[in-house]
């Protein structure tokens, strides 16, 4: 009895401590998030079904992938070694997934043992990648019952701002898709592993590309938020994580929290997940191709993660320091692009807004840099040269976009990946419209709020 009581006390203490560490958020913050979501607003100005800015870069070594999703940053590295296959499956190799969350990432995480979130993410990724059998394990076998490749995926979280699941699973998958095992020759049942320099290594064979897509659910299942931030994850009623591949096949699902699940909610989320997964896989494949081409040109060498550095920003690795974003222009634009196929928004907007409709719809498919710039254009801000500094000479600006570069320079940057994501919304909603899930009210609402703000 005494032992039980002391165990209980230890348990409670630990529980209390974890609780203490996590409650750095104020009550008013969570209340505010809930109130804003009731009004169909997210703090960072995204639509409910919008991903944050996503980036994917491959390292100079095979099997290294770096993914950033907003401010969540993850690095995955795949390695392999020869080992004996398991007794149960003698002609198959093996795959391990390990997610590491260092306590440097965020004050909430503790050193030493793996945190709850770490285990959770680890298990979900395992479910998604290992249990969906996307890697051809039989191809990893070299000699049955004797030697097989053992693949290890190490995912290290570098920064945490919600939605580790999508970020980690994309990184793990990208690393696997990028990885190559060294060539192996067998002479008289003796295995020789060739050096990568001497013999071209062989890529793993992947049957399909499964990706985890996370949702936060609010308002008793009415509001489904794609890609929640840390705050949204903390506040939400329940979390729904769906593993999906580009063929719209379900590869794992996790639903926890206090919302009563209903069919409509799951179906709606799954539809979105399928679209997001499709787009992410498209991004992954295009990046992989680019990397391949570059390696072909430069004899197997690339610049690696140097490409992840942004020269147009003062903090080169940071995407956007403003956790709260100007909602006006961006939402307006994306809302408009949604309405391209529909009737014009019915709110108290003046006529020239409607005329802009077509052209703006195209514009919204651009990269964020451009949106940010056009925002400035709208406010009539002239970007000043660096020398002219009157007031506040004592301050150096910092943070997201470097305002000092010329507008042309920023525009030329607008090339790759993000383009897809803004598109996602349009496609998504068209398809969702086809299934007749009435979600058009969301966008109309946002437009209305815009009109108020635009004053």
């Amino acid at each position: 009895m005494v032992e039980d009581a002391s165990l209980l006390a230890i348990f409670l203490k630990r529980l209390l401590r974890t609780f203490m560490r996590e409650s750095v958020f104020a009550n008013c913050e969570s209340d505010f998030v809930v109130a804003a979501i009731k009004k169909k607003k997210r703090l960072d100005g995204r639509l409910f079904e919008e991903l944050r800015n996503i980036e994917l870069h491959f390292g100079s070594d095979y099997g290294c992938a770096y993914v950033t999703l907003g401010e969540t940053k993850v690095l995955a590295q795949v390695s392999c070694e020869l080992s004996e296959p398991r007794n149960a499956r003698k002609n198959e190799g093996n795959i391990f997934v390990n997610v590491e969350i260092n306590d440097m990432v965020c004050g909430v995480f503790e050193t030493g043992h793996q945190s709850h979130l770490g285990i959770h993410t680890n298990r979900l990724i395992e479910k998604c990648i290992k249990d969906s059998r996307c890697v051809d394990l039989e191809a990893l076998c070299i000699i049955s019952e004797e030697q097989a490749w053992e693949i290890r995926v190490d995912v290290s979280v570098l920064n945490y701002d919600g939605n580790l699941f999508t970020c980690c699973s994309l990184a793990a998958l990208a690393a696997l898709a990028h990885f190559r095992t060294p060539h192996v020759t067998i002479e008289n049942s003796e295995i020789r592993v060739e050096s990568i320099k001497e013999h071209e290594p062989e890529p793993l064979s992947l049957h399909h590309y499964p990706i985890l897509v996370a949702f936060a659910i609010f308002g008793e299942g009415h509001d489904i938020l794609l890609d929640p931030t840390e705050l949204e994850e903390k506040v939400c009623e329940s979390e729904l994580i769906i593993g999906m591949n580009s063929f719209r096949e379900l590869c794992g699902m996790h639903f926890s929290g206090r919302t009563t699940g209903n069919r409509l909610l799951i179906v709606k989320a799954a539809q979105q997940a399928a679209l997001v997964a499709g787009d992410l896989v498209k991004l992954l494949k295009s990046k992989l191709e680019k990397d391949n081409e570059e390696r072909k040109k430069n004899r197997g060498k690339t610049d690696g993660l140097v490409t992840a550095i942004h020269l147009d920003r003062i903090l080169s690795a940071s995407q956007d320091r403003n956790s709260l974003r100007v909602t006006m222009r961006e939402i307006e634009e994306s809302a408009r692009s949604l309405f391209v196929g529909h009737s014009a928004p019915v709110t108290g907007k003046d006529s020239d807004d409607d005329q802009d409709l077509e052209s703006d719809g195209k514009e919204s498919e651009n990269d964020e840099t451009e949106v940010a710039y056009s925002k400035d254009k709208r406010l009539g801000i002239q970007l000043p040269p660096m020398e002219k500094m009157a007031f506040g000479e004592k301050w150096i600006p910092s943070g997201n976009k470097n305002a000092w570069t010329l507008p042309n320079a920023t525009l030329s940057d607008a090339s790759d990946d993000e383009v897809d994501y803004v598109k996602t919304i349009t496609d998504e909603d068209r398809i969702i419209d086809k299934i007749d899930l009435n979600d058009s009210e969301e966008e109309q609402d946002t437009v209305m709020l815009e009109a108020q703000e635009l004053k």
Partner: protein
Amino acid sequence: MTKQKSNPKEVEEITTCKVGEIVLPGQIVDAVGVKEANKKNQVIVGPGLRKIGDRIVASKCGVLREMNGKIFWVDALGKRYLPARGEGVVGIVTKKMGDYFKVDVRAADAALLHFLAFEGATKKNRPEVNVGDVVYGKMVVESTDMEPELVCINDEGRKTNMGVLSGGFVFRASLHLVRKILQRDCPLLPSLGSAFNYESAIGMNGVIWVKSQDPVSTIAVSNAILSAETMTPEELTTFCANLR
């Protein structure tokens, strides 16, 4: 800040750095102003500068700044708050410990807030403060190595604007942004005030509390404050002119 007497002999240096230039950690700082100050024989060395031996060496990467030719410091981007006496901060109550509340002020240590440090509080009449509440108060720091203390009353026992903040929204900004918008000649807050109805508490620790009648304008205000971080002064003035 450490007061120190500097040695006039030290000035024959290889590297020269002017006020307003970028200094790197380890760089020996001997700006023109430092030399001039040497005549008066006294310099005040602020954050980011350190006296090592006879020399003043930068300990942070940033821009060298000066005030009245006497005070020198390095202006760097920062997020981690170092408590300083008398600064107004916004904190979040994380724990109740007997007579004290523990308040997270984004510093290395949580600050302590005594329950009697509220206006009109007595042993019988305890103030109502709960875990998760947002508090605006003043820092009382005896030594940088000790746990800082927070109070919500001034010397006369009045609360002025301090105390528990109810409702609204809290967000974190960098320390230099806070210092920037609290500058006397910064046009941001006055023009925001003419554009929106809102209340705000801006803590020197980089925590900002904003409250207005609906979430949309709260987001708009918070947004405007956050986006001021990257603006050049001219952009800021145009931005503010647009707000009105």
